[in-house]
Every structure is written in C-alpha cells, then in structure tokens.
C-alpha cells in the first residue's frame, strides 16, 4: 500500500492521525550504535513514535558491544538505558600517557533527549539531549541538535556538543558569554582515584559538568534510497581522546559512513565504517505497547444478552417455585464457568441480584464484568431489575458496580453503548457477606504444574547475560478462597555452577543482595518459595495480608501488610512490616549468613558460614494515580540492610496492561558504602501475556533493569502484595479498560 514515503521530523503523529490507506508514510527515525534515534554515533533531533521501545545490539571493532533500550516516553521526551562492554584507557602515569594500558570495562549509562521544536517549512526541529548523564560518564556529553528534511528523502542534521561530543576541534564555550563558569568543565573524579569519601562512585547526576567546557560542531545526513534502504554519513565531534578511563576507541578520521536497512516495520539492520578504523554492525528491534500484534485480541465471543419479553419485565416478584434459588445459583455457576468466572456468592431478591465472583481469565475486570452481566440475563428471574456485580481477587471483594438490567438489554451492540452503560453504572465499595448465599470453594483446590524454566540474569555486574535452564514444579493448595499455600522448586539442568560474577562489594553492611550471586548455585534442588498467604478485608476500605514461610530466594520470615484503598479514590495508602531471616545459600530449608574469604594463594572465593542475619524491614507506601496513564508511588521505611530511606517510582501504565517505569531509592547508607552506582535505581517493565498470545490471560511478566544490584535500598520480594491484588477492581482501573465491557 505504500505509494510513497516522506521523512519529516516531528509531525509523524499528525500524519498518522490524518492518514488514509494510501497516505504517504513516515517510517520513523533510524537508530545509532548507541541505540537512540539518530545517525551513526551522532544524535539527530528526530523522535521515535510515541511509546516505541527500541532494543539495539551493536558491535564495533574497537568500540566494543552496546546493548541499549530506548523508550519514547512522550511525543517529545525519550530516555535510554545502555549496557556497554569496551576497553578503557588506564593511565597509570599521567606524565607518560603513551604507557597507558587498556582494561575491559562494563558500563551502564542513561540518556535523555527532549525535542524542543517541531520542523516547520523553513526551520529545523531542535532537540536537546544528555548522553550518559548518570553513570561514570564514559560517554558523558550534552548536545543541542537541529534536523531538517530536504525534499522527501533527505534529512540534514547539525549540532553543537559538549563533553565527549565537544572533544574534536572544540572551541571556547558560547555559554561563556553568560557566565565564565561555563568555560571549564570540572574533571570527573573516579572512585579509584578520588580521595574524598563521596567522590567518584558514579551514579550521581554530574550536573556541575552539564554544558561546560569546550563545545564542538557535529553534523551529517541520512538519505533514503528506498523505503527500506538508507545511507548515512556524519562528521563526529567525539575525538575519543586518550584520557583516564575514556573508551579506547581507534580513531583516524572524523567521518563515519553507514547503511540502514529496514526489511520490515520494527526491524532495522545497520552496517557502518566508524572513525576510519572500525567496521560496525547493529540491529534494532521495535515494539510499541500501543500497537498490539494481535489487534484487540482473539477472545471468543461472549454469550449474547437474553432480552426479557414485555410480560416478563412486568413481573413484580420472583417466582421461587418456578425458579428456586439453588437451581438459579447452580445454573449461573455453570454459565459463568464457561467464561472462566467463579461464582463466589449470590443474593437474589424480587428486584435485585447481587453476584460476587472471581475472574480467573480476563486481564480486564471490566470485560469479565460485562460477560458476567450477560450471563446473568440468561437465568436471573425476570422480576429482577438491578444487577450488582462484586469482583473479587485473592478472596478480597474489590468493589461493587450496579447496573440496570434494562440498560444491558437495550445497549447491547448499540453505537455509544459502551459509554452509555458506564454512565448508567454506579460504583461503590463491595457490600457485606450478609445476604449472599455462598458457593463452596471450587475444586480442584490443589493445583500443580511442571515445566521448563529459563532464568536470565541480565547486566549482573561483569557479564551481560547469565542463563540458567532446568525444570521447575509449582504447587498450590487453596485452604479457602483467601488462604493459599504455594511453593515452587527448581532443578537446574546445568549442575553445580560457579557464583555469578557480581562485583565484590566490601562494605560495613550485611551483603543482603550482593550475596545473591552465591544462591542456588550448588546444582541441587532449590526451594524458590514456600509460603502460606492469608488475605482479609478488615473494614470496607481496608485490606490485610499475612504471608509466612520462605518468601523468596534469599529470605524467609513473616510479612504483614495493610492497605487503605477506597474504590473511587486515586489515592491508596499502605503499610508493610516484615520480620526476615536470610536463607542458607543452598536454598534448602535452613537459614544462615555466609561471608566470602579470598584464598590468598589461589584467589578463589570461599564461602564461610558466619552466624545468622535477621532484620525487621517495613514501609509506609503512598500510591497515586496521576491520570493520563501515569502512576506515582513513594515507599518510606527500613530496607533489608537496616538502612532507612525512601523509594520514588513513576510508571507509565497503558490501558492494555503494559507498564514502563523508573524508580530510585535513597537511604542513609552512604554512597561510598553502597559502592559503584551510589544508590539504587532502575527501570522496570511489565508485559501482559495477552498482548502477545492474543487469547485472554491475567498473567503478566515483569523485568527490572537495575543500574547495579547492591545492598542499599533493597527490599524483600513477597508475592501477592495487596495493591496489585486489589486495584483491578478499583474504579480508575475499570475506567481504563471499560472499552472491553461489551467485548
């Protein structure tokens, strides 16, 4: 269908909104070896499509490997996280730089770019960016860049860079006119050389360097030969100077050339010749949460509404002889089973029927509610005019939604029916158990599963990827709806393995997380978790949880939590207190703490048992649904190592279940005790299964990319925390997926 292609900067979104089937198509920016939109090593002012997540793997002869994730958070703002492996200069004697050696380095870095203006007929799009602003600054630079399309196939870019991007033919800083402080760039003090306590652990924002020191010009162009194939050329302003801890990249020319090949949407392959020295290859893969490959899903059709006749609607009372309660309840139980919905309790009066149910199939509680309501029309006595639906999860009633039966009959398959049924609904806190006739908890109460597992540890210290494969078994026993015993064991197929290659972390605290490198590596059966979890609604708006047992890989103990979450509120407040003991690293039933002793002769790390480690940890948590898909959360309290502090998190939550967010934790553990990275921070992604598999599922998979997993700001991982259990039935969540009510 692609009849022509037009590359423009900044108004791709507008084109899409107006696009017809045969409209000119913008195939979006191509990506640099840094995994950000741009040329080869130089940025452009282009932004990716809003919501695009780009994963890039790149390699260059002396430049090493880079694995990057770029996320276009808003139309204008993008962020990137990068893990790089390359050789660093180690200048031992500053007087004699030629004697420098190189050393393999594993580096994490973060970028930000903000597009200030869009391209217009005569003016370029302009963007400002920070590259590697949060790490040890190996690539640390700032830039202002402009890009302009010329005709439909050419984009020309020019910019001004500082830091590493100001290191070739630099000139004195134009900002020096404003303040002479801009003229010199403060030297970054690395921790190895730094003498002050807090200096040089990396991970802090090097604000005092921003836009300081010499500036230099860079520029280049990208030309689309065809929709799939483009050529790129650029003049680089990074001279890769041989300085302390700078990347040891060979350079003999400022010019870089490359080809960008996009065989199909979402895939880009690049080949380039960089700095007159290196051949480079990279591949970029795009995914966008807002573009579901399975469209709106492959959910089987719901049972249609059964409409009452006028005579039936006129009935004032429930004919209990014709429709005795046990028969109605049994029938509805069976009908709901078809939809993967368990009938928990039912209350029928002449005019109202109240259904409490647990949805086990649909990600969207609104969709499950729409299906439950349609099933109710099949069998609930005709005199009943009002349906009250009370979704439940983990044995906790979440909310109550009241729907007029006549509206369900009239709005099915009607244009505007989704909005109209929402307007006709009223939302509130779930009612009391009194009045409900409860179904016995359903069988089978015991469930199990055996299957393979693949556990990937990415960016763990000094290696990009560690994989473990094997077989795992899960078992779950429901004592009641709100009391569950569950466990998981794993057997690695790889046998006994060496400890993961985490960084050594000498500090005065217990190695509450860095010891994870030694956990479950002996090749025997591992107990991943074995817990008893009890949930209860304490008041209509307050929920409680107690979980005891082997909570996670490294800790056992007891975890208690309360959560105040009114159905209609954007706020929720919670508190959690845990008493924890560190488990034995063999991941059996024992508890023990070990320390590492390095054999002075062989250098081997020996683990020596050294008493026990117990800690009381806990947090007060505030959750706030900001709206527009953003959710903020603050947790303040005591962390695993006994350090006190707070975690701040912001997540972009898509209505279809994707979540992409970032967090950071500041505690009273000093930065030099924390080690490299200074404090804990990371990016986390949650992906719903149904996005990929198409058929409905409530499962999700989550990954956290931490800049460095350390002992400060660490928390115990307890399954089934209250907020996640409860919020699906909250009004704001029902709103988000209400479009699925009639699906």
């Amino acid at each position: 269908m692609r009849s022509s292609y037009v590359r423009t900067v900044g108004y791709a979104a507008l084109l899409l909104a107006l696009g017809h089937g045969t409209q000119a198509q913008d195939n979006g920016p191509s990506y640099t070896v840094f995994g950000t939109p741009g040329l080869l090593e130089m940025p452009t002012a282009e932004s990716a499509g809003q919501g695009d997540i780009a994963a890039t793997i790149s390699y260059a002869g002396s430049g090493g490997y880079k694995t990057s994730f770029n996320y276009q958070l808003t139309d204008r703002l993008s962020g990137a996280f990068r893990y790089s492996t390359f050789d660093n200069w180690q200048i031992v004697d500053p007087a004699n730089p030629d004697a420098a050696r190189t050393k393999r380095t594993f580096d994490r870095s973060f970028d930000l770019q903000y597009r200030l203006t869009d391209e217009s007929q005569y003016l370029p799009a302009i963007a400002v960016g920070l590259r590697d602003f949060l790490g040890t600054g190996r690539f640390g630079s700032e830039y202002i860049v402009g890009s302009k399309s010329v005709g439909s196939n050419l984009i020309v870019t020019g910019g001004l860079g500082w830091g590493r991007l100001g290191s070739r033919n630099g000139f004195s800083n134009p900002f020096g006119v404003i303040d002479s402080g801009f003229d010199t760039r403060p030297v970054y003090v690395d921790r190895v050389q730094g003498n002050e306590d807090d200096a040089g652990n990396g991970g802090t924002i090097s604000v005092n360097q921003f836009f300081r020191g010499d500036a230099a010009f860079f520029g280049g162009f990208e030309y689309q030969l065809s929709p799939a194939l483009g050529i790129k050329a650029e003049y680089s302003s990074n001279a890769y100077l041989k300085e302390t801890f700078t990347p040891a990249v060979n350079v003999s020319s400022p010019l870089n050339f490359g080809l960008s090949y996009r065989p199909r949407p979402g895939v880009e392959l690049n080949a380039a010749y960089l700095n007159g020295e290196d051949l480079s290859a990279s591949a970029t893969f795009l995914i966008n949460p807002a573009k579901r490959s399975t469209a709106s899903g492959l959910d089987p059709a719901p049972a249609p509404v059964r409409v009452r006749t006028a005579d039936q609607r006129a009935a004032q009372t429930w004919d209990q002889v014709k429709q005795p309660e046990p028969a109605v309840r049994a029938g509805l139980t069976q009908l709901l089973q078809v939809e993967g919905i368990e009938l928990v309790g039912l209350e029928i009066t002449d005019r109202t029927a109240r259904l409490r149910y647990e949805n086990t199939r649909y990600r969207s509680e609104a969709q499950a509610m729409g299906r439950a309501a349609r099933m109710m029309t099949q069998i609930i006595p005709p005199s009943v005019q009002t349906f009250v639906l009370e979704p439940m999860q983990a044995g906790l009633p979440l909310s109550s939604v009241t729907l007029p039966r006549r509206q369900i009959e009239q709005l099915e398959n009607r244009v505007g029916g989704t909005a109209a049924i929402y307007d006709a609904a009223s939302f509130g806190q779930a009612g009391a158990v009194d009045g409900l006739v409860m179904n016995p908890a359903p069988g089978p109460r015991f469930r199990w599963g055996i299957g393979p597992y693949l556990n990937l540890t990415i960016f763990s210290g000094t290696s990009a990827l560690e994989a473990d494969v094997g077989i795992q078994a899960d078992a779950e026993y429901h004592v009641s709806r709100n009391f569950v015993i569950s466990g998981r064991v794993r057997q690695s197929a790889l046998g006994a393995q060496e400890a993961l290659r985490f960084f050594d972390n000498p500090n005065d605290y217990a190695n509450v997380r860095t010891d994870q490198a030694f956990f479950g590596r002996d090749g025997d059966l591992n107990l991943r978790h074995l817990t008893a979890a009890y949930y209860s609604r304490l008041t209509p708006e307050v929920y409680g949880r107690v979980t005891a047992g082997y909570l996670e890989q490294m800790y056992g103990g007891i975890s208690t939590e309360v959560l105040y979450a009114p159905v209609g509120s954007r706020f929720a407040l919670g508190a959690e207190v845990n008493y924890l003991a560190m488990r034995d690293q063999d991941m059996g039933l024992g508890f023990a703490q070990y320390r590492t002793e390095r054999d002075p002769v062989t250098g081997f790390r020996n683990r020596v048992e050294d008493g026990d480690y117990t800690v009381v940890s806990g947090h007060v948590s505030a959750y706030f649904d900001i709206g527009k898909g953003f959710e903020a959360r603050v947790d303040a309290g005591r962390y695993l190592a006994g350090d006190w502090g707070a975690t701040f998190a912001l997540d972009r939550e898509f209505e279809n279940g994707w979540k992409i967010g970032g967090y950071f934790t500041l505690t009273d553990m000093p930065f030099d005790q924390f080690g490299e990275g200074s404090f804990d921070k990371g990016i986390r992604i949650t992906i719903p299964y149904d996005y990929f598999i198409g058929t409905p599922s409530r499962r999700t998979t989550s990954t956290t990319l931490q800049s460095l997993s350390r002992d400060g700001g660490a928390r115990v991982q307890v399954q089934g925390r209250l907020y996640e259990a409860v919020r699906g039935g909250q009004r704001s969540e029902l709103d988000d997926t209400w479009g699925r009510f009639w699906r």
Partner: protein
Amino acid sequence: MKRTTVFAAALALLTACGPMYENSAAKGFLAVVQQRVAGLTGGGGAAAPAAPVLTRAQVDANPGAFLLVTAYGGNSVASLVVASTNGNRVTWLSADNVAVTLENGIIVATRGFPRDLIAVDARGVRAAIAAGGGNAQRIHETITDLDQISQEVLQCSIALTGSESIEILGKTTPTRRFEESCRGERTAFSNTYWVATGGAIIKSSQAVAPATGFLVLERP
C-alpha cells in the same frame, strides 16, 4: 521443510504440563510458532476443507436456520446458528465461538475476530437499499489496541449495479446486486449485497475492520 518440523517437535517436547501451566506464555508462543511453521510448510492448518460445513439436506430440514460465514479471504468457513434476538438484531454464533450480529442482513456487531465491530449504526444503508440506491451515513465502533472505543463516521453511497442469479448450496436465486462504497477518516471500503425478490439480503460481502477484513455472508 523437515527442519521446521523437527523444530516444532522439539518445541512440543518442551511443553509444560499441569493445570497451573495451562495458558502459559510458553504454550502461547508455542501455538504461534506451530501455526507459523504449519503455514510455511503448507501442512496442518486450513488447507482444502475435506467436508462442507453445511449441506443442502441440513438446510432443507431447518429452513432459514443457518448463516454461512466465509472469513479471511476464504481461508475460514463456518456455519452459524441463531444465538439470540434483541429487537430486530439477530446474533449468530458458530461452534468455535465467533459471533456476527445482523440487523436486516447488515452487520452491526462482530465478536471473536482480531478486530471486532463493537457496534454499528447502518440504518440509513438499509433504507437506501430498499429505496433502490442513495446516500447514507454509517457509524462504526471498534476497539483499539489500548482497549478504548474508537468511533468512525463514514459517508456511503449505495447503487444498484445489476441483476444476478446466485447459487448458494446448490440453490439458485435471482437477485439484484447493490454496491455500497464508503469513506471515513481512517478507512474506505466497498460492500456488496445480493437482494432477493422479497427484499431480503441473501448474500453479502461486508467490511469489518482492517485486521479482520471482509466477511462473506450467505443465507442458504
């Protein structure tokens, strides 16, 4: 071809078991891969229907009880029966849970396709057909990848394009053929209706949504 089969078999061996692992991601991905492999090798899947989904004898035994739906460009044929009636809207359901709701023969909702029509207002189109042609407005509601309802207003022109005798399951019926051509902000399509003497639409080709395409509906 052999290699893909071996690959699929190896994947199948890795499949998890037990009630907790139903609907696991591994199984979902496996199903997708197996479909792709089957598609590549031409084996398995939707090739050459061995037996018709519906016979003339079945239709004669229950006149008017069936709707034949052909989807995905002929790759899928199903026989649907009435599941419910709501006013003048009839919802037809297939054995594998695909539903099509018709109002006087025009699609007003679908369920079970990758992109469903949640609701349609096409009353003007039916009136234009009854009048022998004319202009009409359609409103389509679909569900987006982000679970939101998206509404599109389409302007349509309906014209009589000829007389045609069509055959459905061995029975030939004289019809008048109407073409409906529609254009909205995002989509454009043409539907075709074959209308029998009494005014009933006995065959039609109607657009649903981009990921779903056209459905051919026949009343044997």
